[in-house]
């Protein structure tokens, strides 16, 4: 177990390192560098900037050093001092811009995961037990729709329905009276009341996928010999299903938490943008549109870190659930 965890942990660190390089590339990719942009901004406010000034600025900021030195100083600042640089569009440190918004993003991702598994596992079991029943077909059909409609379009549809049919707006995370209010129990309840909408929107595709996985594995497992053996031992049907096929079918489900989280995080910015959530989503999109590379880079790094750490945790969970993984016999 310890060896398994250590191995996973090392892999996680290597991935984080690789990731930081990719993020750095996206920061460096747009034509021109920070000095050019600074100069452009100064020019637009009427300040005269010469080529020499730009060179001077570039030297001061260390932009004329080779790329690996720049990378090291960038990542060093982040890891050692938590300094993600300055937002180009808002002229304040990136950490201040992101602030508590990243917390909402993490909360949303977590709520979506809970929703996904809370809904998918029971439905998957039901579908497998009542294969080819009306309910099974119904959920299969719903699953097709869930996988076909991308989350941001679903968010739009939901907005449309809520505005036209229910005459209310499902956007945002808080009712107006709580937006500026300090944290309290009521505010938290209000948050939960709003959170289910984006969680539903973000989680639908994953839920559909997990229902299919759960159903398929259950159908596979319930005819396996060890189930028959337990039946031949005199185990009552209900307990038999819960103790064996359901328990075994949980493993592939748990092993997909990592991917699922990745998909949720990937869809989150667009959904947050459409539903006008006060999390990092709209911020990220605006940063991209403004080519505010330090802000968007920081966010990209945070998003990816969230998924990689999440995958690490799902690996631990899987090891706890499945002795074959725990004892290093990955099959």
């Amino acid at each position, binding site marked *: 177990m310890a060896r398994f965890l250590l191995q996973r942990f090392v892999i996680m660190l290597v991935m984080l390192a690789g990731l930081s390089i990719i993020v750095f590339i996206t920061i460096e990719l747009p034509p021109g560098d920070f000095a050019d942009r600074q100069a452009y901004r100064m020019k637009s406010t009427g300040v005269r900037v010469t080529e020499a000034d730009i060179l001077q600025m570039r030297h001061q900021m260390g932009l004329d050093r080779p790329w690996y030195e720049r990378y090291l100083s960038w990542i060093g600042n982040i890891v050692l001092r938590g300094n993600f640089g300055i937002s180009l569009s808002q002229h304040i440190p990136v950490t201040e811009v992101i602030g508590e918004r990243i917390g909402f993003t993490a909360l949303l991702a977590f709520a979506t995961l809970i929703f996904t598994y809370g809904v998918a596992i029971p439905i998957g079991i039901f579908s497998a037990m009542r294969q080819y029943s009306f309910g099974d077909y119904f959920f299969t059909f719903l699953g097709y729709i869930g996988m076909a409609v991308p989350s941001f379009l679903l968010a739009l549809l939901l907005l449309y329905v809520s505005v036209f049919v229910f005459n209310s707006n499902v956007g945002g995370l808080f009712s107006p009276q709580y937006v500026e209010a300090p944290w309290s129990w009521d505010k938290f309840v209000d948050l939960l009341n709003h959170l289910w909408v984006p969680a539903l929107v973000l989680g639908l595709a994953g839920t559909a996928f997990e229902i299919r996985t759960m159903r398929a594995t259950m159908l596979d497992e319930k*005819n*396996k*010999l*060890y*189930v*028959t*053996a*337990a*039946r*031949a*031992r*005199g*185990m*009552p*049907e209900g307990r038999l299903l819960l*103790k*064996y096929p359901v*328990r*075994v079918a949980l*493993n592939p489900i748990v092993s997909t938490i990592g991917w699922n989280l990745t998909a949720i995080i990937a869809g989150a910015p667009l959904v947050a943008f459409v539903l006008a959530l006060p999390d990092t989503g709209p911020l990220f999109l605006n940063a991209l549109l403004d080519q505010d590379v330090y802000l968007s880079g920081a966010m990209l790094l945070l998003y990816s870190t969230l998924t990689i750490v999440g995958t690490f945790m799902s690996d631990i969970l899987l090891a706890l*659930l*499945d*002795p*074959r993984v725990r*004892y290093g*016999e990955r099959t």
Partner: protein
Amino acid sequence: MNTNSLLEIQDLRVSFPLDEGTVQAVAGVNLAIQPGQVLGIVGESGCGKTVTAQSLLRIIPPPGRIDGGTILFRSSKQSGNGKDENIVDLAKLNPKSEMMRRIRGNEIAMIFQEPMSSFSPVHTVGSQIMEAILLHQDLSKQAARERAIEYMRLVGVPGAQDRMDDYPHQFSGGMRQRAMIAVALSCNPSLLVADEPTTALDVTIQAQILDLMRRLQQQFGMAVLFITHNLGVIAQIADHVAIMYLGQVVEQAPVREILRHPKHPYTMDLLRAVPRLGKTAGQRLVAIEGSIPSPLQRPMGCPFHPRCSKMIPGVCNTHVPQWVALNEIHSVRCVLYEPNAPTPNLEPANVRAASTLA
């Protein structure tokens, strides 16, 4: 039901309705087992021996269903209407009923062919042994655990105490089959169904497991229904043998009697196909001609006639042979032994049909 029998199967028929047609897996099986007797069932794969065994516990995989016949079982632990003994027709029981569940594992236990997959991979072996004990006996968890360890020792798992909390993948194939036997014996069943328990094992391990089973059978005195395709194994362990072909028992007798005086042509062919010490080097083993027909296309008349060397055209391909008792211990299902066998019906159609099928 005979006053001595533990189990009597009469004209059992089991079929599997599939998209391609209905497969008659068991087509009228008659069998009887006395208490403490070891009855071997021998036949090629697909002859219905496993399905027969599954019918006893009513664990036939879907879409299989019992179409008819009776499976009378003398239950000693069900105290229905105040008597100690009680005869139950397993074929009529609801597979999900309380009664069926109390018989499973408790009075009739089963060992399966694949020790590799007959344990859940995510539960400890110990917990799966304890499960059977806890289901049928009024014991505390601690007592059940001790009972389980005791049985693990009994079946020869070394270090039983420590191995209780190991997972199946940490057991070797032979050890798993031993553990499976421990599960089966843990409630003192009066009948043990062993479905090819040694087929998936190495030859040396096979011998050990057979040895163990014979020893435990003598110790516990339960009856055993031992299913195999290997006549050599049967000779080692069984008292009686039933030979099955295409869902029917074609011959039944004590082991020695069958080995020495086989009556049915199929049994004779089977025996000729077994390698034996003492045969001269030049002698070849004889394979049975042809192969088992498609289960969807059962031959008319005697199901063995297309492959039979003694086939009588016009009789074997039209007439279904009767179950004939040659003496008190030996019965056979073949027209050669029928006292009033029909005369050949040599209409050209029958002869032609026979020759094309042969």
